[in-house]
């Protein structure tokens, strides 16, 4: 069982924010052929707000920390990514004070994402990254390869949700931008060393 603490969670979010800032243009480029070209700028605006909300703050527990993160994402990202990432952190906040087990937290987050967006595995959305990653975390076997394979698996899928679904077969051959940003989220989680 892997436990999360306020300190490791803050490291995780700092790492995620840094990755989004570094890949802002790349995420928007990925979003151009199959979306509307703004995933990078929307996520960067959201993560800047997240950092403003958590940097230098003392949080009593994961609940308060994740709630602050969720509210920053919900109120700053917009589009579909704001409600989806925001809901993920809100669901983790609900569990945070009773249960710091990472598998349970991420499981609750994924259930929230699926309920909010209605996507299933195979629809070419961030659910396709979260599903195998959460399974691996619960099995104690999350590695960078699991994350990378999950992100790359979206390339050959036909989009069935969101704006990319209007392209149908033409969405094949493109990585899903939300899956790529979720990949950064889990890469940042591994980098905190919680699994070491």
């Amino acid at each position, binding site marked *: 069982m892997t436990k999360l603490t306020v300190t490791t969670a803050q490291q995780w979010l700092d790492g995620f924010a840094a990755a989004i800032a570094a890949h802002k243009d790349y995420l928007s480029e990925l979003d151009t052929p199959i979306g509307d070209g703004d995933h990078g700028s929307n996520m960067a605006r959201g993560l800047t707000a997240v950092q403003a909300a958590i940097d230098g703050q003392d949080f009593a527990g994961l609940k308060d920390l994740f709630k602050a993160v969720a509210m920053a994402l919900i109120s700053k990202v917009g589009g579909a990514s*704001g409600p989806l990432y925001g809901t993920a952190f809100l669901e983790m906040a609900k569990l945070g004070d009773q249960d710091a087990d990472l598998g349970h937290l991420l499981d609750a987050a994924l259930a929230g994402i699926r309920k909010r967006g209605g996507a299933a595995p195979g629809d070419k959305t961030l659910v396709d990254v979260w599903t195998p990653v959460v399974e691996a975390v619960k099995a104690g076997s999350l590695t960078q390869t699991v994350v990378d394979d999950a992100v790359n698996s979206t390339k050959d899928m036909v989009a069935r949700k969101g704006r990319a679904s209007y392209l149908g077969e033409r969405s094949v051959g493109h990585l899903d931008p939300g899956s790529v940003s979720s990949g950064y989220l889990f890469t940042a989680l591994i980098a905190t060393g919680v699994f070491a």
Partner: protein
Amino acid sequence: MKKIINDPANVVDEMLDGLVRGYPQYVERIPNTGAIIRSNKASMQGKVGIVSGGGSGHEPAHPGYVGKGMLSGAVAGQVFTSPTPDQIYAAIKAVNTGSGVFLVVKNYSGDVMNFDMAKDMAELDDIPVKSIVVDDDIAVKDSLYTQGRRGVAGTVFMHKILGAAADQGATLDELDALAQKVLPNIKTIAVALSAATVPEVGKPGFELADDEIEYGVGIHSEPGYRREKLQPSKALVAELVGKIDDEQHLTADKQYAVLVNGMGATPLMEQYIFTHDLLNNLGDRGIKPAFTKIGNYMTSIDMAGISLTIFELADPQWLDYLNYPVETIAW
């Protein structure tokens, strides 16, 4: 990119301030939000509030339709990006006078999710809220395997109908029933000559050759169903009316309202030419529209192109609603 702006990051903020400062008789802005509400508060007393909104870049939609007889509030997100739930909720709270609030949402995953979250927030505060998701764009196949049809220019007719009914005292449940009844009668299809350039992106959302057009493009540069060489206006009309006829089965014994909508960079001169051809095409089918609107009502920044909306007036009262007087910037 050549645009009259200061900083691409500030376009929405500066646009909304310009809008409310230029038209204080109609609208005001809830500070630190993208929520634009009526300045005529007395006109909302005892009435159900109507709130719409969506990403920016569709001006005059949606704040241009805020005013007595139409919307009570409109929430503007970033360019082509849904507004956030806290801002939508701020508008709901500001226009609720005790009779509840009805939301008009266009069918995009972001808009649907953010408006749903705002609805949850309002319900926690005991404000009754109902909503309709408009999906009038027939270019997209309506199937379980897509997001479904997009909400586009026909949404403006929904605003007008509901706004008129609300002003005449319709209850939240009556507006809900009216919206459900109106929705399947509104059909829209577009043709694009060039794509929009989002200021923060700096280049067009897709490329079309100088002599190329694309049918069925959405209002955020979503792809359409066919590309071909540019055709004369008459041929464009024939294609678009034909597509709507496949869905709506246009007949001489029914009443219709039509909206010829410029996408942002198409001059009115071309829109009037298109309308001339449209009225000829419909005339050949024995149809004379009971109501016509021509102009830029639901744009896509600087996209060149036109969308055609045909609204079957299945209930004669809907024509009265369309003709009902409003006090707005843009209807």
